[in-house]
């Protein structure tokens, strides 16, 4: 799936606009998964000390994010795509968001996960729609879509985990999740372009 996805990105018969779109997709997804990786890194670090029984659950999600992150790193290198210019900013912001929400407590951390995964899941769906509409039905593009939909399913699983773990009990719930969602949308806007 990874090999085929790299082939898709490097496909020489693509129109310049199509290649450009794929570059945007890989750049923003790489930045997003880096963010997710660092958010869970921050949460895991805090919960290991404040709420050890929650740490394994976070660790499980974190491991999946590390896999997503590594995958997009490889596609970015092999696909000859520049990473987002704001990478250092994403790192600091995500680590801060992860540690900050975890310090607020379990509910806030879960509300953070809920917000982030809602936006990311929706974003992956938008990409999948465009990838199936505007790209050929050849093996490599089928596999690229498969890779993205697999990751999307993981994100939706994280979303369910967050809701099961009292994400909605965070006070003031709406304010926190909406703020984080808007932050994510802003980051997507910037990472796609720069």
């Amino acid at each position, binding site marked *: 799936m990874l090999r085929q996805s790299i082939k898709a990105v490097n496909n020489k018969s693509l129109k310049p606009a199509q290649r450009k779109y794929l570059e945007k997709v890989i750049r923003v997804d790489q930045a997003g998964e880096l963010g997710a990786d660092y958010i869970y890194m921050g949460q895991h670090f805090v919960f290991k000390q404040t709420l050890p029984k929650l740490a394994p659950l976070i660790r499980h999600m974190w491991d999946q994010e590390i896999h997503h992150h590594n995958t997009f*790193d490889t596609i970015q290198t092999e696909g000859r795509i*520049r990473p987002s210019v704001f990478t250092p900013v994403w790192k600091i912001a995500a680590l801060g968001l992860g*540690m900050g929400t975890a*310090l607020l407590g379990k509910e806030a951390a879960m509300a953070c996960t809920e917000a982030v995964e809602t936006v990311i899941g929706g974003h992956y769906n938008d990409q999948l729609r465009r990838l199936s509409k505007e790209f050929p039905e050849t093996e490599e593009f089928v596999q690229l879509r498969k890779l993205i939909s697999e990751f999307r399913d993981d994100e939706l699983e994280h979303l369910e985990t967050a809701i099961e773990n009292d994400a909605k009990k965070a006070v003031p719930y709406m304010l926190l999740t909406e703020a984080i969602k808007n932050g994510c949308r802003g980051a997507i806007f910037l990472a796609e372009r720069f």
Partner: protein
Amino acid sequence: MIRASPRFFTVRTVQASLRSYATAHTSKSEVDLPRQILERGLQLLPEHGWDLAPATRSLGLSDQAASIFPNGKFDLLQFYLQKQTAKLASVQLKSSTPDGCVRELVHARLLANAELGPYLGEAVSMLMSPKYLPYSLEQLHNLVDEIWFLAGDKGHDATWYTRRGSLAMIYAASESFMTRDNSPNFKHTLSFCDRQLNAWSRFEAAEESVSEWFKFNAIAAFNVAKSLTR
């Protein structure tokens, strides 16, 4: 990426068409004519420099034929640079570290300039002229991007930019040093280049440890803040 302004329009068009000549149309000779002229131009390069008229003449065409290249000499230079960048993929690398591979590739690329003789200086001044600078920078970026890729660079963050930016500066500086270098086998150019590369890797190592330090200290700082506010 550089935007096409009207002033650079002609350069952009020829570049775009060069790119498509390179991929498609390898059999139809009439479509291939510009490429044929450029290829011949490269063959005649050591004797005639960047001028395209000798190439058209030797193909039995009138001097007028060279006018399909609106930027004349610079079009041949761009073609030359693209070819040189593409050639790097066949360099047999001996080093096991990315830094070592970068050094080998930069040396290989610099030494390829040796055949240009007196025309290297003219190339460097064309590349630096304001009219062509955006395209020169694009070629330079393609070169250093290829070098880092071949060397196995796995930069996913700011290092992706800093590595390309610094190598571009080192390469450009070494190349202009080369125009004034009369030492045998460009010994002085290579050692000039090595000094810059060494300084850069020392700097990068220091910078990397700073960002690692920052990551762990950010975690530690939060921890301290938390214990203080409890």
